[in-house]
């Protein structure tokens, strides 16, 4: 069904899902939403499957007209959306009437926002995914970013709640996007190719996100990192968040649209939960890397999935469950309180 017509698309607005997995061995990059947390929450709030295709916008949200009644949710970078000139809350499902126009003010913090529409966005799947991979012009909307006049269709993702509206994410769960982030990494897979002093410097200095940063990777600027014996390795696979350091000594963090293989030594790899934070960093933001153990990374991931599970429960039964995030002596706990009717 025709659902949305783009009036002003914004500088980089694409269709994304969780990414195109299973074809990296053939040289096909994964792509997918950069901030998977915000993207998944947007889907949950409108009753979609977590992996339904949604709109990812960058720097500026799109102005669009709804061609049918819809339920939408806007998450990610902090901005002010408008429904026919009336400001709208983010991180909440909203009923939008046919003929309404959604528009956005500029972004206050963060970089990328998500608009999920009930039923998910229906573009053809390419190799099992609806994600746009711009460099090879595949997936998403005709393999390209959205343009004025494009008409997006919706599908039948999720439980199909016709009036899945006013589901709101409790405040404590809304991420806080900063311009100075601590990003946790696991050293390796080729940390042994770097000088010890350089690894120490890498972990104790601030690195700036430069303007040469995009969905493929972030080029950073900071103290030079020195290799023991050259930057080149025999090309191998690149995991998400890999931090490769070419001969010039400035790190590059490889992200969603990264090529599948590469020939630069990788000093460290960003842990999966912190990729979402990275996705929201604008050029000029600063990063400080912190080395953690695998155990800490797994704990962070489990905590995140636990949170998303609670949010899902809450989103489906907003009247029945109240979810609280508690912080007790530095540790976060999630408590859900259910009303019991007798």
């Amino acid at each position, binding site marked *: 069904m025709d659902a949305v017509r783009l009036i002003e698309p914004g500088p980089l607005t694409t269709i994304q899902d969780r990414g195109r997995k299973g074809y990296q061995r053939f040289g096909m990059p994964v792509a997918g939403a950069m901030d998977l947390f915000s993207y998944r929450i947007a889907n949950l709030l409108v009753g979609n499957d977590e992996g339904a295709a949604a709109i990812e916008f960058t720097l500026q949200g799109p102005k669009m007209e709804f061609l049918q009644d819809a339920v939408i949710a806007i998450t990610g970078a902090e901005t002010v959306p408008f429904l026919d000139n009336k400001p709208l809350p983010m991180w909440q499902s909203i009923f939008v009437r046919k003929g309404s126009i959604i528009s956005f003010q500029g972004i206050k913090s963060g970089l990328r926002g998500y608009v999920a529409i009930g039923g998910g966005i229906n573009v053809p799947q390419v190799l099992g995914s609806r994600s746009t991979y711009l460099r090879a012009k595949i997936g998403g909307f005709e393999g390209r970013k959205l343009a004025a006049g494009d008409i997006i269709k919706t599908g039948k993702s999720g439980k199909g709640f016709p009036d899945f509206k006013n589901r709101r994410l409790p405040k404590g769960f809304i991420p806080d996007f900063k311009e100075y982030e601590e990003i946790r*990494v696991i050293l390796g897979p080729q940390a042994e190719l770097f000088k010890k002093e350089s690894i120490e410097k890498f972990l104790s200095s601030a690195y700036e996100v430069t303007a040469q940063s995009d969905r493929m990777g972030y080029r950073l600027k900071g103290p030079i990192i020195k290799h023991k014996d050259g930057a080149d390795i025999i090309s*191998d696979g690149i995991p998400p968040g890999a931090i490769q350091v070419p001969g010039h000594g400035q790190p590059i963090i490889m992200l969603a649209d990264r090529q599948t293989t590469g020939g630069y030594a990788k000093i460290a790899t960003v842990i999966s939960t912190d990729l979402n934070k990275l996705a929201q960093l604008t050029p000029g933001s600063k990063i400080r890397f912190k080395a953690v153990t695998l155990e800490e990374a797994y704990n962070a991931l489990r905590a995140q999935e636990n949170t998303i599970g609670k949010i899902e429960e809450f989103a489906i039964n907003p009247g029945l469950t109240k979810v609280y995030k508690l912080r007790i002596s530095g540790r976060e706990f999630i408590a859900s309180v259910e009303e019991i009717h007798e």
Partner: protein
Amino acid sequence: MVVIKYKAAGDMSIVVEFENEISEKVNSKVRSMCLAIEKSMLTGIEEVIPTYRSLLVNYNPLEIRGDSLIEKLKDIENRLEEIKIPKPKVVEIPTLYGDDFGPDLKFVANYNNLSIEEVIKIHSRGKYLIYMLGFTPGFPYLGGMSEKIATPRLENPRTRIPAGSVGIAGSQTGIYPVESPGGWRLIGRTPLKLFNPDHQPPFLLQAGDYLKFTAIDEEEFYRIKDQVEKNQYHVKTSLL
């Protein structure tokens, strides 16, 4: 005995590293291990990416921890001799050499003091190991080209190279899967599609197999191209 290294690459991937060299011997170990991992159907493995001398194993940490996965991979390594691995395939790439389809063929011949016919003969004689795929979807990193036809890249890369172009860069040969810019010396073109999202399987080649080029004429080129468009072409393969 060479020790295989297992290294964490973040919290979702493990690198399995073999000897630090580019050789058919090492790459065949990569291929065997890759196929053995696939056969094992281990829970939690999402994707295995074979490269020159290593494998990247992506896993879901909510289903399996990295350390237990490494133990399981080591088990597979120890049983590798028992696991039956099929022989590599040789995929035939029909190629129309020269003229508009290979505008640099003459240069390659002149550069190496050979006739055009000799270049074609040398290029289509070899079996090339597909070490890995990468760079662009479906692009094969090939080994085994004769030094007799090695030619440096163009000084000014072309902005638009048609899909299927066969080229030489230094002592490497390769095929452009999709239209892209590039600096390889173009010697011919294949009517086959290395990447076709509407076809099953979508990729013509896989890492660890071999390919060989077969010279065809223009008439055959268009005949095969037509069959490829209609999804009726059967790619010729043989066992190594």
